[in-house]
C-alpha cells in the first residue's frame, strides 16, 4: 500500500498547478492508460472554454472508442451512426449557421465506413471542423485492422501483419481531403508531447476562427497511439508511433489558407 497520509496537506489552492477545465464533466474517462483521446478531449474542452463557445458548440460523436465523448464535455451533443458524423454535422450547421459545429471521429469511422460522408462533406466545403484521431487500429472492438493500419502491422484481423497485396494499403484520408477544393485548413498533428499538444491546440483554435469566418471545412488529423490495441506500454507506444506512424503520416500542415 502506498502511504497517502500527507495528501490532505498537499491539496491546497496555493499548490494548484493544473486543474480540470470547466467544460470537462465529472465523469471518469473510459480510455486506457496512456491513450491520446484524453489529451485530445482536454485541449478541445480548453478551446471551447477559452473561446466562450459552450453555448455555441454542438458536437457530433462517432462510433468507436470516443463514442461516449458526450459523457465528458459539457456541451450539446449528437451521437451519430458509424461513419455518418459529417452528414449529421452538415445538417446541424446548415440549420444553425451561427453555431460552432464539429465532429470527432476515429480512423475506422472517418476513413472506412464513413469515407463517402467525409469526402462529400469536405467537398461541399461544409463549414464544420472535423477532428480525426488516427491510431491505425479499431480500438473499441478490440484491435482489428483499420484503413490506416500500417503495412505489416499486426491486428486481430491481420494477425500475420497487414499484407497490402490482399488487404490494401493504409489510406491517407487527410491527404485526400486536402486535395478537395471545399476544404480550407487541413493539418496533421499529435498530442504525445507537450510541444505537440500546444501545436494541436493552436490548430484547433485556428479552425474555430475559420469557422466563425465561414471559410469551409477544416480537418485536423491527430496521429495517436493505442497502447492496448498495439499491445505496448504507453511509453513504448509513443516511441513506436514516432518511428512507424510519423514516417507514413508525417506531421504538419497539408493545406493552409493563403493569408
Amino acid at each position, binding site marked *: 500500500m502506498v502511504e497517502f497520509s500527507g495528501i490532505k496537506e498537499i491539496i491546497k489552492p496555493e499548490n494548484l498547478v493544473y486543474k480540470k477545465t470547466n467544460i470537462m464533466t465529472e465523469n471518469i474517462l473510459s480510455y486506457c492508460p496512456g491513450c491520446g483521446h484524453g489529451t485530445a478531449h482536454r485541449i478541445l474542452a480548453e478551446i471551447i472554454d477559452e473561446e466562450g463557445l*459552450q*453555448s*455555441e*458548440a*454542438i458536437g*457530433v460523436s462517432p462510433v468507436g472508442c470516443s*463514442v461516449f465523448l*458526450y459523457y465528458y464535455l*459539457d*456541451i*450539446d*451533443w*449528437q*451521437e*451519430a*451512426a458509424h461513419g*455518418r458524423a459529417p*452528414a*449529421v*454535422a*452538415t*445538417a*446541424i450547421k*446548415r*440549420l*444553425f449557421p451561427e*453555431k*460552432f459545429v464539429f465532429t470527432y471521429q476515429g480512423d475506422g469511422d472517418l476513413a472506412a465506413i464513413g469515407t*463517402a*460522408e467525409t*469526402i*462529400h462533406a469536405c467537398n461541399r466545403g461544409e463549414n464544420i471542423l472535423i477532428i480525426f484521431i488516427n491510431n491505425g487500429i479499431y480500438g473499441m472492438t478490440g484491435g482489428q485492422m483499420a484503413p490506416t493500419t500500417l503495412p505489416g502491422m499486426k491486428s486481430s484481423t491481420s494477425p500475420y501483419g497487414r499484407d497490402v497485396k490482399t488487404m490494401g494499403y493504409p489510406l491517407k484520408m487527410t491527404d485526400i481531403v486536402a486535395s478537395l477544393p471545399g476544404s480550407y485548413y487541413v493539418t496533421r498533428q499529435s498530442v504525445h508531447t507537450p510541444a505537440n499538444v500546444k501545436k494541436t491546440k493552436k490548430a484547433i483554435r485556428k479552425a474555430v476562427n475559420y469557422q466563425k469566418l465561414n471559410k469551409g471545412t477544416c480537418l485536423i488529423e491527430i496521429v495517436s497511439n493505442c497502447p492496448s490495441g498495439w499491445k505496448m506500454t504507453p511509453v513504448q507506444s509513443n516511441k513506436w508511433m514516432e518511428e512507424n506512424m510519423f514516417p507514413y503520416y508525417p506531421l504538419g500542415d497539408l493545406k493552409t489558407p493563403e493569408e
Partner: protein
Amino acid sequence: MEKELRLMKGNEAVAEAAIRAGVDGYFGYPITPQTEIIEYLMEANPAGTTGMIVLQAESEVAAINMVYGGAGCGKKVMTSSSSPGISLKQEGISYIAGAELPCLIVNVVRGGPGLGTIQPAQSDYFQSTKGGGHGDYHLIVLAPASVQEMADFVDLSFELAFKYRNPVMMLSDGAIGQMMEKVYLKPHKERSKTSPDWATTGKPTTRERNIITSLDLDSNRQELFNIKLLAKYDEIREKEVRFEEFQCEDAEYLLVAYGTSARVCQKSVQLAREQGIKAGLLRPITLFPFPTKRINELAGKVKGMLSVEMSAGQMIEDVLLSVNGKVPVYHFGRMGGIVTTPEEVVESLKSKFIGG
C-alpha cells in the same frame, strides 16, 4: 387566407406543401419515381423565401443522417426516396426511432425486390409498418390515396412526429407520385424560430446539456427505454388510427385497400354493386397504427374480406390478425409495377366468395 387551387403531380404537391408547412430542411437523393420532389424544391429555391434548406446528398445514407442531425436540432426536416433508396435509409431510420426524433420520410414505392421496376407497387408495407431497420420500433405510417392527401399529410406528419417524438413515413407509390390531380394548397405557415427543449441548440447556462443518442450499454436502462417506446406505440394505437369507409353500411363483402389500390377499389365497389354484389371498402389511412378494431367490428357483419394490395400479400397479415378468424380473408393484387384494375378486383371477389 383562401386555399390555392393547383393542378400538380403528387411529388410536386409534397414539395410545395413542405415549403408551405414551414419545413426547415429537406435532404434527398434522386431516384425514380420520386425525383420531382427534389427537382421542385431546387427550382422553388425556398432558401430565399422561407429559409428552408434543400440539399442533394451524396447518398440516401447521407441524406437520412442529415435528417437525423436536423431533427436532433428540433427542426422540421424531411427526406424522400423510393424503395431501393428507402432500404438504404433503414440504418438511419432505426437510429432516428432510437433517438426519438421527429421527421418525415416519404416513400414513393416502386416494385421490388432489388432494383425491381420503376413502376408503382405497394410491396414495402412490411418494411414500413413492422420496423424496417433493426430493433423494436415503429414508424407512424400514413398512406395517401390522392395528390391532395400527399399535400395534406405533410403537415399532419409533422404534427404527429413532434407530438410523439417519432419518425413518420408517408407511404405513397409511383402512381400517386406521378399523377396530376387538383390540389388545394394551404396558406404558408411561418417556420418556427424555436426548438423543443430536448434539442441540441448549444447549451445555455440555464439547462443541462442535451444529448441526442440511441446508445445505452446498460441493459436495464435500455430495457426501460424499450418499455417506454412500447407505451408510446400503444398510445399511438389508441389515439391516432385513421381510416375511411365507402358503402360499408350494408356491405356483405369488404375490400380492404390503401393508397392507389383504394382508389381502384372505390371503382370496384361501384362495379360490384352494379352486378348486385354488396361490396364495401375500408381504406386504412394510417397503416401504423392499423384500424384493427374497426376491421374486427366489420368482420362481425360481412361474409368475407379481400385485402387488395399491389404486392404478394403483406397487409393481409394485419387484416387476418384483426379479423381473428371470424370470416375468411383472401388477398388479391398485381405485382411487378402493374396496377390492379377495378374489373380484376371484382372478378377476384366473385371467384373467391361467390364462385365463378
